[in-house]
């Protein structure tokens, strides 16, 4: 057992967990934040993507204790039902989902790629390349890519027609 402490969505949290506890289990089962999903559980699908110290990582492929001392942000930490993050708003606007299971990871990866490339600097090819580690089992990529492009452009202050 180890005491795992981290800043989770801006709040300092601390719990005693087994060293083998995955970060995604810590987030979902220990902290009760179920926005982060477990899809394949084999490091492939990206449904569990969260940000650790500002970088997108697969929470099913990291131990909670590895993230001890870090700043962790999950889907719940980027926006709220009354005040959506621009990427969340764009996913709603462009219907960037079908069943919605992959959406949390898609949104967290989208926010990460916009941070790295700079808002307004994403073209379709780059977005598709950057989404390598996020799988949509419904194969609804088209609207996801559209949503990310729209959010990126909107965040850059470029006015972009909604359609």
């Amino acid at each position, binding site marked *: 057992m*180890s005491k795992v402490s981290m800043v989770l969505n801006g709040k300092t949290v601390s719990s005693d967990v087994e*060293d*083998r506890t995955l970060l995604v289990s810590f987030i979902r089962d220990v902290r009760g934040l179920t926005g982060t999903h477990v899809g394949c559980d084999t490091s492939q699908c990206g449904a569990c993507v969260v940000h650790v110290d500002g*970088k997108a990582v*697969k929470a099913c492929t990291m131990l909670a204790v590895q993230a001890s001392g870090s700043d962790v942000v999950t889907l719940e930490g980027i926006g709220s039902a009354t005040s959506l993050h621009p990427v969340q708003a764009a996913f709603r606007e462009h219907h960037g989902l079908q069943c919605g299971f992959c959406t949390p990871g898609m949104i967290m990866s989208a926010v990460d*790629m916009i941070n790295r490339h700079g808002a307004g600097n994403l073209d379709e090819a780059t977005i598709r390349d950057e989404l390598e580690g996020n799988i949509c089992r419904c194969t609804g990529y088209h609207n996801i890519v559209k949503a990310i492009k729209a959010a990126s452009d909107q965040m850059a202050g470029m006015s972009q027609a909604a359609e």
Partner: protein
Amino acid sequence: MYETTYHRAGSVAEASDLMSKADDGKVLGGGQTLLPTMKQRLAAPSDLVDVTKVAEMNGISEGDGSVSIGAATTHAEVASSDLVKAKLASLAGLAGGIGDPAVRHMGTIGGSVANNDPAADYPAALVALGATVVTSKRSLSAGDFFTGMFDTALDEDEIVVSVSFPLIEKGAYAKYPNPASRYAMAGVYVAKHLDGSVRVAVTGAGQDGVFRVEGMEAALAANWSPDAVANITVDANSMLHDIHGSAAYRANLVTVMAKRAVKAAG
């Protein structure tokens, strides 16, 4: 995953000490290979020694005619390093083509070379560039370090500290990625060294892991052009064959990737 005990090392000396005291310890880099293996219960180390916070194993620096990369440096850091992009652009490109962004944020060069997956990208770079692997005990040439599929010269408790790459005249890496995993089906790194010698290293295709193609090296030393390697083939009998591709297919890919790499190097 079976139970394990996690330790975070603050120095190479502390990591070595923790490893020697552990029953069945394993070094933990980015965990992008080790944790999936533990989840499948194919590995069950009693102790994990996390080396990613060790200062002397992090970062990229320029030496005399070389670039040294700490073993705990992530693929994303190598890919985006201004120093690597300026001095060894082909290496930055290779790192940026590993897996996906989340894997690159965690996976480390030390973990990749210590694992020596036959489909991993870095082994081709180390062999083609003639890199030196610096460990907690010694320095090894890349040729001596990689000893076969998933096998290296590392002792059980030996830790990769850094990898030093000599600067080259020119080089490039071309990979045909598995469309699902992004691991190499065949990846060829060609490098023209400052003394005029050429090295061609292949990953993803060989049954014994990374290997050199001497015929291509000689041909390119005489005539650096894609045509020089166009008719040189590797023996399909020593290629991997699996659900992703037959041995003959992989042998063909090696020649195709070699041509592309030479063309990209210019």
